[in-house]
Each structure stands twice: as C-alpha cells, then as structure tokens.
C-alpha cells in the first residue's frame, strides 16, 4: 500500500531523512517510532505532499504521489484541527465537500464516520463543547470521511487521559479489523505494542530496525530483564558481569539482561551480598528495545 524508497530530505545543513526505505502492506498497522527530530513529521509531510523530497520515491497503492493521490490518504494530525464553532456533522460535511463527495454519498459517509467513532449522538454538538477524547475521535473521523486507503495517525493519543486513550485504541483496533492500512507515529511504546503488526524505529533519518514485536525482541540477547535499585551499584554490576549479564542504566534503574529465565528467588540469592532496595523481573519490552536502538551507536 505504501512504498518508500531511498527517500532523502535536507533542511539547510541538517540531513533529516537519509535514504529512508519503508514498506507497508495493505491492511497492516505500521508503528513508526523515533525520538523528537528523527524525521517523522518530515516523512508525513512528504507523503502528504506538503513538502518535496530531495531524492527518492513514494508510492501509494502503486501510484507515485501526486495531486491525485491526496484522496488516497487520510491524515489525523496530532492537534485537533477542527472548526470549533461548527457541529461535528458540519465539520464532516465541509471536509466531505472538499473531497468531492456529493449529496447522498456525503450523507451516508457522514453517518458512517460518526458511527465509526461512536459520535452519532453528538452529531449536532458544537465542537467547542466536546471533551478532548471526543474531539480527537472527530479528528479521526474527518480523516476517514473520503474512505482513504491509507490512514496516517500522528500521535493519536498524545495529551489524552487514560479513558480517552482506551477509546482511541479501541477505534484503531476496529479500523484494523476492517482492513484499513494505518501508519501510526507515537511516543507511547505501549500503544505501538498493543496496536501495530510491524514497528520501525527511525533514527538519524533512516529506519534502523524494523519488524514485528517478536522480531524486534530478538535484537536483545535476553530472555528477561532484571531491574534493580541499590546503593551498591558497583558491587551489583561486578556480580552481574561474572554471570555474563549485560548491564544497562535506565535513569536511576540498574538493568541487567538475563540470557535465560530466572525466578525472583534465584536472583535474590545471586545478589545476596548486595543491599537491594527493589528488584523486579519483566519480559523484554518494546521500551527496552527502543532505548537500546536510540541510544546505542551500533544502530
């Protein structure tokens, strides 16, 4: 559905995208992760033809991007770009007109989109009176009004409370079940873990690792992650190194990669000489992979 090859973009002295390649199959949710300034917004702007690339190609549904491919893309920006004094239905009506929908088709699509985002009872509510979660759902409904083949969700749950976040996740899952192809950018790794079939991590303008969550897990040579807090870090590190554990520091936490599964009691016995404040064992999570990829010079 989306094929990007050798895409490069430079802004004055900064290479924002560097020979980036990306492929999203139809019906797939692709999670694009990366630190601020990694080039996510630039990539979206190029796909939407807001800016031109210096080099490379972008194809949507096997068509090179052009004015004609605009109607193939639906984009829900991270800010709710809505007309505050209009109702939900009027906002949808306006954007439906811009996408060339006429009368009966427009009415049908407005109804379908409101139903899809569970806002049919708020069709005549003024946008300014909606809650943050409702406004975000309407923002997504506008992106769906013209039945795009590719939906781009730019940080869809940023700034929402947990309840609204669950609503948006449920909505994205419903869209996935209907076969919608989605490119999702997010800083919430839990969001990517829950929703995406494929995840790519963008660093220095290119995708440095890519794959399913399971495939990404294999990048870290660990079965589990041990997180410890202690005043005697040096002693703990020395013991860990003797056991061939790989050592990492995540903020104030001391982290060891365990090459094989161990029970909590085994770990406590192993570090018996260390005054432990807290200790926990958890499976390898996307967060661990992300931190490793974005901070390590190996990628």
């Amino acid at each position, binding site marked *: 559905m989306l094929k990007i090859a050798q895409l490069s973009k430079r802004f004055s002295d900064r290479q924002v995208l560097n020979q980036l390649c990306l492929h999203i199959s139809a019906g797939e949710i692709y999670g694009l992760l990366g630190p601020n300034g990694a080039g996510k917004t630039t990539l979206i702007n190029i796909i*939407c033809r*807001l800016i031109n690339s210096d080099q490379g190609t972008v194809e949507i549904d096997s068509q090179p991007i052009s004015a004609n491919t*605009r*109607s193939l*893309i639906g*984009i829900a920006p991270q800010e709710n770009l809505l*007309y505050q004094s209009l109702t939900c239905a*009027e906002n949808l009506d306006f954007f439906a*007109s811009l996408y060339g929908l*006429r009368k009966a088709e427009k009415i049908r699509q407005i109804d379908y989109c409101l139903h899809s985002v569970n806002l049919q009872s708020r069709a005549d509510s003024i946008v300014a009176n909606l809650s943050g979660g409702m406004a975000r759902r309407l923002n997504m409904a506008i992106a769906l009004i013209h039945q795009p083949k590719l939906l781009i969700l730019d940080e869809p749950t940023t700034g929402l409370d947990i309840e609204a976040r669950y609503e948006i996740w449920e909505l994205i899952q419903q869209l996935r079940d209907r076969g919608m192809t989605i490119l999702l950018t997010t800083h919430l790794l839990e969001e990517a873990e829950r929703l995406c079939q494929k995840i790519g991590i963008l660093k220095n303008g290119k995708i440095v690792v890519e794959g399913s969550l399971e495939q990404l897990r294999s990048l870290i040579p660990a079965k589990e992650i041990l997180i410890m807090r202690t005043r005697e870090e040096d002693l703990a590190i020395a013991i860990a190194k003797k056991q061939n554990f790989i050592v990492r520091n995540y903020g104030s936490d001391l982290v060891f990669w365990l090459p094989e599964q161990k029970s909590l009691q085994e770990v406590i016995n192993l570090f018996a000489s260390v005054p432990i404040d807290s200790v926990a064992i958890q499976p390898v999570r996307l967060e661990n992979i992300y931190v490793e990829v974005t901070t390590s010079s190996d990628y």
Partner: protein
Amino acid sequence: MKYWYETTAVGRRILLELVRHRRSLILWAIFPISILLLNGFILAEGNKISLAEAFKLATPSTLVGSALFFSCLGGTISTIVSERESHTLKRLLISPLSGISYYLGILLAYGCIGVGQTILVCSVAAFFKVTFTGSFFFGGLIILLTIASYVGAGFLLGINFARRVEDVNGLVAGVGVPMLILGGAFFPTRFFSKELLLIAQFNPVYHMNEALSGISFQAKDWHDPEMLIHLRFLVGFFVVAIAGGWLTYRKMLNQEKSL
C-alpha cells in the same frame, strides 16, 4: 465543477461560522446603520437640507466606508488569521482543496455579507425617501469591485501584518480609520482643504465613494470625465488588490506547508 463545489463549501463554512458567532454579523449591521443615521441627521441639520437629500449624500460613503470596509476587509483579515492561528489551514493544505477555490470561497462569503449590507443600508436610505436615480448596473459593479478590492487588500494586510487575532483590531484601526476619514466615509469631502483633497486622490476609498455617489445617486454618466478618473482608479486598485492578495496568499501557503 470541482472549483465551484469547493468555493461554495468554503464560502458556506465561513458564513456558518459567522452565523454561529452572531456578534460580528450584528455589529456589521448596527455600525453602518448608526453611521448612516448620524451622518444623515447631521448633514440635514448642518446644511439645512431635506432628510432625503442628506441621506442621499450619506448613503454611498456609509456603504463604502462603514459597511463594506469593516466586513470585507476586516472580516477577511480575521478569517485568515484565525485559520492560521488554529492551524486548520494546514488541514486544508492536506486536502485536495485548490488555492483558487479557497481564495474565491472567502470572496464569496464576504461578497454575500457585502451584498446583504448594501441591501440593508439602501433600505434604511429608502425609508428616508432617498431615490436611486443612477445606473443600477454600474452601481452594482462598483459595489462588487469594492468588495473584491477589500477582500484582496484583506489578504495582503492579514497575511503580512497580522499574526494573531489581537493584531486585527490594531491593523483595522491604524490603517483603516485614517483611510476612511480621508476617503470621505465619515465627513463629506467637500469639507476638505485643497491639500487634503490632493492627498485623498491617492486613497482608494475616496474614489470608491465618489464613483458610487456620482453614478448611483447623482445619475452621472460613466463617460463623465470626473467619473472616469474614479472608475479607472477603482479598477486599477481592484487589479492591484486582487493580484497582490493572490501573490501574498501563495506565499502564505508555502510558509504554512513548511511548518
């Protein structure tokens, strides 16, 4: 057909927003009516002329100055600034909406408001027995050129000098009010000194006012040498405002795309 649908969609949306806010529409109705009434009564009293004559003198200047100027120029500036401030412009840039349709949509919306104000002001004037003796066609043409010029100038000023909604008031007051006074919108130009009249020759509001007054209310022929000067200036200003507005608008689109 695509342009037509898009233009009407943009125009309808702006009008709907104005209807929802109401305040602007109400003020755009109250302000010219109150200025017309004040001017009419002051002129009648000061010049010892009939109310019909006084209102005949006051109507064109009120229409050009107090009605169309604030709605078509001020309104256009507000629309552009609020669209930029709320970033909805970016969503429009992502959509297939063409730049021409957006420009024409704003022109259509404020054109409708301008025509509405014209009907309102002329109705009040008619209530005071003012008769419109001139050409309806040319009168209508002058009003349409005036509306389009103001919208074009609104694009020019709004994009270049107003980044936030708060800037709009300052811009309209700082640029607009002196232009209106010098254009004879509040005081008839026959009270002006020679020097002031000379400066007024460079003011588009003065020419709009004189052209409308001469052709629609004093039954002057458009061939009249004096009218030709006003009409030429008006057409020239229309071309400059529309072209300048369009070029500035293109510049804004490029700026907004790169944000």
